[in-house]
């Protein structure tokens, strides 16, 4: 018995190694959104420096057979032990995951960002809107785990000071009224386009626009497991349903001044894991949207990724929309603004990220 167990132990280890070696290496992990390590070849220099050894460890970890199963098993076990915060996500009730923000670290940054925002708004003549985006936990606090601590987004907003003439478009009431609908994903940190539509209605009210109504929707053929699911890949979590509104205008979209597309959506993303990137093709430094709306108005949007679901609606009201992401846009913003003196400006940020974002100094550059 003892002999069998002893031999069995070593045999299990050897066969795990054999299976890892024999199975072809996978190139990319959708769950983790990163390239996986391939079997490293030793060389004299890589062995002498120890690089080969650490690559071997990475290779084993990345290519271990049934790796996703183990990762999900651990997350689920931790959940069973009472953990409601796994990998930076809170696991709430009703299958809802929430982004977890580090408290405390951001208070200095918030002060700075508030000042940047005010300075920027004061310097810009012409129409300026600020549309704050709320996180799911502000709309569904009842689904948060007990005693979970999340940023107070209402308090953050209450500290925003805009000059006379700038318009604050607060979508909170509209979102709250629609909270029985699917306005936020459960497994992703973003809102759905249905949620963004509520904010769009609020924006139209403030900007004096006649909103697009009765839009048809295109449903993704695939279940959507979002970014929060990657952090806490529990067994038994239901996927989200992803859908996109069809906007009845024809557009010409240029991403980063290079690639062009004829639509507001990258539909191929619906076959990948991160389906949210279907909206305006995910993160880009600058996206130039030319439309046939024929209104003679143009808009510059300064934003984070929540805007990707919102801006498509605006394509019905502006001839040209320049969408700038300050996390990636490193040219002076003032030059871009000077090129478009007539353009209206929309600042739209998720409030919790607004409090932490280290890129807002670019507003006044």
């Amino acid at each position, binding site marked *: 018995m*003892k*002999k069998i*167990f*002893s031999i069995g*132990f*070593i045999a*299990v*280890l*050897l066969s*795990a*190694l054999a299976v*890892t070696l024999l199975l072809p290496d996978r190139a990319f992990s959708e*769950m*983790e*959104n*990163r390239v996986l390590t391939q079997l490293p070849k030793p060389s004299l220099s890589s*062995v*002498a*420096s*120890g690089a080969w*050894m650490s690559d*071997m*460890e*990475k290779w*084993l*970890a*990345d290519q*271990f057979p049934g*790796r996703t199963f*183990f*990762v999900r*098993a*651990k*997350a689920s*076990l*931790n959940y069973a*032990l*009472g*953990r*409601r*915060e796994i*990998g930076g996500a809170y696991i709430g009730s009703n299958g809802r995951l929430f982004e977890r923000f580090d*408290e*405390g670290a951001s208070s200095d940054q918030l002060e700075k960002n508030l000042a940047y925002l005010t300075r920027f708004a004061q310097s810009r003549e012409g129409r300026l809107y600020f549309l704050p985006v709320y996180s799911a936990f502000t709309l569904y606090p009842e689904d948060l*785990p*007990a*005693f*979970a*601590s999340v940023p107070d987004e209402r308090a953050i907003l209450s500290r925003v000071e805009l000059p006379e003439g700038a318009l604050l478009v607060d979508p909170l009431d509209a979102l709250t009224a629609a909270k029985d609908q699917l306005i936020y994903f459960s497994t992703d*940190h973003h809102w759905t386009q249905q949620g963004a539509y509520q904010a769009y209605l609020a924006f139209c009210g403030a900007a004096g626009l006649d909103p697009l109504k009765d839009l048809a929707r295109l449903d993704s053929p695939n279940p959507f497991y979002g*970014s929060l699911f*990657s*952090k806490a890949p529990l067994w038994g979590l239901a996927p989200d349903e992803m859908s996109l509104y069809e906007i009845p205008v024809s557009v010409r979209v240029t991403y980063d001044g290079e690639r062009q597309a004829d639509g507001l959506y990258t539909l191929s993303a619906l076959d990948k894991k*991160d389906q*949210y990137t279907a909206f305006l093709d995910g*993160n880009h430094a600058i996206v130039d949207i030319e439309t046939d709306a024929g209104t003679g108005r143009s808009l510059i949007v300064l934003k*984070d*990724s929540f805007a990707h679901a919102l801006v498509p609606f605006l394509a019905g009201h502006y001839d040209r929309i320049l969408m700038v992401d300050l*996390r990636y846009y490193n040219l002076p913003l003032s030059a871009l603004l000077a090129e478009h003196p007539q353009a209206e400006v929309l600042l739209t940020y998720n409030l919790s*990220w607004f409090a932490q974002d280290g890129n807002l100094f670019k507003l006044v550059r």
Partner: protein
Amino acid sequence: MVFSSLSFLLLFLPAAVVLYFAVPRRARNLVLFLISLVFYAWGEPVYVVLMLFSTVVDYVHGLLMARWDGRPAARRAVLISSVLINLGLLGFFKYAGFALTALNQALSLSLPVPKVALPIGISFYTFQTMSYSIDVYRRKCPVQRNIISFGCYVAMFPQLIAGPIVRYVTIAQELDCRRETWDQFYAGVKQFILGLGKKVLLANSAGLMWSGISAQSAASLSALTAWLGILAFAFQIYFDFSGYSDMAIGLGRMFGFTFPENFRYPYTARSVSDFWRRWHITLSTWFREYLYIPLGGNRVSVPRNILNLALVWLLTGLWHGASWNFLVWGGYFGLMLILEKFVYGAALKKAPAAVGWAYTFLTVLVGWVFFSFDDLGAGARYLSAMLGGGAGFWDAAALRLLLDYGLLLTLCAAASTPLPAAWFARLGARRPRLHAVLLGALLVLGFALCLTYVVDAGYNPFLYFRF
């Protein structure tokens, strides 16, 4: 290479076992020596030379003592030379940076501070080789004339990088004649899995809790959070270290060696001196055998005794790392031990067990604050948070922590006592068959669970959605 890595579990361990048992008995020390060098070089390709140097030095010093057997003065000189070389290596690689920085600060000098990376395990193997030289000098063990056997002792991978500190006398006999048996091998696998479980299931989970708390500024911590945090750290370091020792002892057994026990339920201790008889036993033994007793031990005047204790404990602290907080930590325990010995030790003995335990555990927890913060100021701020000087006495965050980690902390607390093992042993006496089935299931499930946690450690979602 650490035992809880996939490289060790899947590559090194099976290869080592197969190679070791494939060769005839007389070649086994050589094989063990060579695979140990590979093990060391896996993490430290260059410093393997340093360890070999240390090996050769002590081997030669042993031979010299044997050669000048009848010349006490020469033997003494050889011993001093060996100790100086060992301490010199340790001093240069571990303490030079710290000492020079301190000197620069104290005297406002600007001596260049060498940037040397600490060779893994140097604190362990220099202490082991010194034990050899000293015991040969004291004629407690014979000289080892076979360099392979001696190299095998110094480099032996199970205890190479994190102990236990195996004194040469302990395994002198097993080095040259030992019998590996299936019983031993099985017992070794069992203890290895137990240690792996302590490390990856308990220590790493408690460590996750602690790193979340210690990363916050102490001013934002409520007292309850701060206490939960240091409790988590206490469990992390205990299960990490004792788990590592269990794995080492288990691996030693697989290859036919009997290493000394290193931890004996330290958190059940009822006095601080009792704690140190249960915590990192091989280190305390080393300091007692090779420093405290040679200084005169207890058989000296009270002032001298106090001085000896203070010296031993300051050095014990410093052994744990070259920075001020470890010196403070060692000094703190020295002080507590002196107080216990000369002031209230007798009263403590008469007090109810619960009082002794509470006093000891509290002392140890406060000690871990010094231990865990390199920066003494940060440690002091954390202590103040424990007293309510941060964000009050309790808050929602602390309650969330209790819900998230309460069960884990309870499991850790139970595993820190001898109760589960005692219960299991009683079951073995009453219902041997059930005991055997349960043990088998525990080992298989436990190992599967460990593997789950080890594999998950490589899961790194790279979510650049925002950045």
